[in-house]
């Protein structure tokens, strides 16, 4: 297996709410270029906070320590100090794209889809918009361009969200529970599509999910979080086959029981 | 309580608003202690003195100390404005909540009433009211309230229309609770934030209206003087006795700015807390 140069490395990230408890402690991990890394963990363990920290989306009330290294195309490394206010402006959208669970809900209801995509492209041209929509799996991009947000189904809206996230041609994509509201068929389609895009463009994906079933097909690496800390990480297959932490083990046990129609 | 104060103080708009308003309030409350010179007492050999250490804001045409007049005037102006704001908000909220919650013909009648009030030219209304009503604190408060209650009614109605579609209101309906109960315990508490911010901004408007009325001679009558009354006296010799118009005018402007800042800050805090 070739060792890929990590495109994103997080060193000793700590996040705490001012005057209150720590939310994330000692977060250290790296994303190999072109891979998909999944983060799992129970609600409230800090997965979403981590995503927001990587994009500088936490408010002023949060105290952040540690640093983030982004590998550039020319081999150099850009170091980002998350505590700095403007550290992320060049990064957001350009180097790191974002798709949250609520992203489809944040579509401007007063603008057609095509217009909203156009507003995000550095060089807005019609063929680029069409290419973007085709990339996320729309067979009739022209129709979608003229649609209003409320005319889209859940799955379609999620794919538009994906298109918007990819509009800036980022190297890294962070998706946070993007398919929780979708049913199993739409969910599978979404992750298949994501995988295809990754193979075509070399995108590195960081994915937060609590759907164990999708992991086996969608992720290369797995990070397990519990109470604000990373308790396990490694190649997805190995973690799932030999879970070290009790929390991982219990998750797998529940999933296995469900699959076999038994109560865990 | 102190936690609320801390949160409010941290907001920049609120902080400046309070910095402006608290001294004004304090001065009004302190009243006689702060301004030992009797505001009514005329001193005809001290007519139209420029500001000095004795008379901090100078004297007016009857030799009355302007500073004391202004301090006393704050009680009147603020007293009238705050009372009118309270009345307007109470009435407007009740009406808006009922209209938004019950909809149908009730909504129709109430909103048409609002439209009628809004359509009435204000000056005409003032003259009409001034002609028919006796002046006095209560009457003035009612007149002032009638000028501004419509805005609150509309705002509350709009909020109510939104809130009633919320899932928790539907859940309460599913429980079988009576409409009155739902309006009282599910809708109203979620309106309070908006109403408070609206009220604060309203006070600024009312101060201006009250001052304008007094300026025109319709509001507070002598010897009780609100800032507007004092301002109108400044008209007589605006250059020579500049201190009368300037100090009273400044006070009005600064206090209104203070309430607007406070209101904007409260609105920011309310919006943030919703996210």
């Amino acid at each position: 297996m070739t060792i890929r140069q990590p495109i994103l490395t997080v060193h000793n990230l700590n996040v705490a709410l001012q005057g209150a408890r720590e939310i994330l402690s000692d977060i250290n991990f790296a994303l190999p270029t072109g891979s998909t890394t999944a983060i799992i963990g129970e609600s409230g363990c800090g997965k979403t906070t981590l995503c927001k920290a990587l994009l500088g989306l936490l408010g002023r009330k949060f105290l952040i320590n540690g640093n983030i290294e982004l590998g550039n195309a020319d081999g150099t490394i850009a170091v980002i100090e998350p505590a700095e206010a403007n550290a992320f402006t060049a990064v957001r959208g350009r180097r790191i794209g974002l798709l949250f669970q609520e992203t489809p809900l944040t579509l401007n209801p007063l603008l057609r889809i095509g217009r909203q995509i156009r507003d995000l492209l550095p060089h807005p041209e019609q063929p680029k918009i069409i290419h973007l929509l085709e990339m996320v799996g729309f067979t009739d991009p022209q129709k979608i361009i003229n649609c209003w947000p409320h005319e889209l189904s859940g799955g379609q809206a999620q794919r538009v969200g994906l298109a918007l996230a990819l509009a800036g041609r980022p190297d890294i994509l962070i998706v946070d529970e993007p398919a929780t509201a979708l049913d199993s068929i739409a969910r599978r389609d979404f992750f298949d599509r994501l995988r295809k895009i990754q193979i075509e463009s070399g995108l590195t994906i960081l994915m937060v999910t609590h759907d164990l079933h999708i992991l086996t097909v969608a992720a290369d690496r797995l990070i397990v979080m519990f109470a604000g800390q990373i308790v396990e990480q490694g190649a997805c297959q190995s973690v799932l086959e030999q879970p070290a932490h009790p929390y991982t083990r219990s998750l797998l046990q529940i999933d296995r029981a469900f699959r076999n129609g038994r109560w865990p | 309580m102190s936690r609320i104060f801390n949160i409010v103080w941290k907001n920049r708009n609120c902080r400046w608003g309070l910095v402006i308003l608290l001294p004004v309030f304090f001065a009004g409350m302190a009243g006689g202690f702060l301004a030992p010179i009797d505001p009514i007492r005329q001193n005809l050999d001290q007519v139209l003195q420029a500001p000095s250490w004795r008379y901090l804001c100078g004297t007016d045409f009857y030799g009355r100390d302007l500073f004391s007049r202004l301090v006393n005037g704050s009680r009147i102006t603020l007293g009238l404005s705050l009372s009118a704001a309270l009345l307007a908000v109470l009435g407007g909220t009740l009406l808006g909540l009922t209209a938004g919650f019950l909809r149908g013909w009730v909504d129709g009648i109430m909103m048409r009433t609002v439209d009628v009030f809004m359509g009435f030219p204000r000056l005409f209304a003032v003259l009409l009211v001034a002609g028919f009503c006796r002046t006095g604190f209560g009457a003035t408060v009612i007149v002032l309230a009638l000028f501004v209650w419509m805005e609150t009614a509309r705002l509350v109605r709009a909020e109510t229309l939104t809130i009633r579609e919320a899932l928790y209101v539907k859940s309460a309906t599913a429980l079988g609770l009576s409409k009155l109960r739902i309006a009282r315990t599910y809708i109203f508490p979620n309106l309070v934030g908006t109403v408070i911010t609206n009220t604060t901004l309203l006070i600024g408007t009312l101060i201006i209206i009250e001052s304008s009325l007094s300026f025109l001679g319709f509001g507070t009558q002598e010897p009780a003087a609100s800032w507007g009354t004092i301002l109108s006296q400044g008209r007589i010799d605006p250059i020579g006795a500049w201190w009368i118009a300037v100090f009273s005018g400044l006070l009005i402007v600064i206090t209104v700015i203070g309430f607007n800042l406070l209101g904007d800050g409260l609105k920011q805090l309310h919006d943030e807390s919703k996210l």
Partner: protein
Amino acid sequence: MEIQTTHTLLRVNNLVVEYQPRSFFDQVKPVVSRAVDQVSFGVIKGETLALVGESGCGKTSIAMAILGFIKPAGGEIHYDGVELNELTIGKLRPQIQPLFQDSGSALNPQMKIGRAIGDGIPPGLPAGQKRIRVLELMKNVGLPENLYDAYPRQMSGGQKQRVCLARALAVGAEFLILDEPFSAQDISIQVQLMRLLRDLKAALGLTLLLISHDLSTVRLLADRILVMRTGKIVESGTVTDIISKPQTDYACELVRQAGIKP
């Protein structure tokens, strides 16, 4: 659990629900589709019936119609023999309670949860006794006592869902409509809630209408399944039938995607 009688508690006949126009544009151009298109089914007292299908297939519209929040364009709904309409819904409301996917939005943000649950208790009980009853209900759904004075925003998603459950029990519901009640939580919490539901149902003899797109949870909780697609029921049967021998292509696909072994 054996179903003792075949008393049909809920009967839905030829229900039609049309899409509510959400904007001016919807009203201008002709909207053809129906959210629910001539759907008929019955729920037997004591059973758990699952409505399964992709998002937007009409499941939630059915729930809203039964709860009286949407006026159907056609068809009728009968509960315990009584037709549900504007006149009767008031009296029958307490017996049919919903549990929504977004438990946070289903709770009044300005109300402490002890009070929210207490609102379900029929009037007439003195305050002291009411509190005791609320605490008892909280215990039954697994909520710690100290949350009595907590606000919804101070609680986790799983806890909020328990509050909604306690509220439904407080009002004495016998029929619960659950619209994706678990999907917002991760599976360790889901399992806890599922167990709670299963135990409460057994203890209180509840009837459940479970709306979900997650076949693995449906499999454990439901007795019968109705598979819906674009407003119509395409297949129905017992849980074992549908999961091991799905007849329609769509049902087959759903089972396959769920990754469960028959």
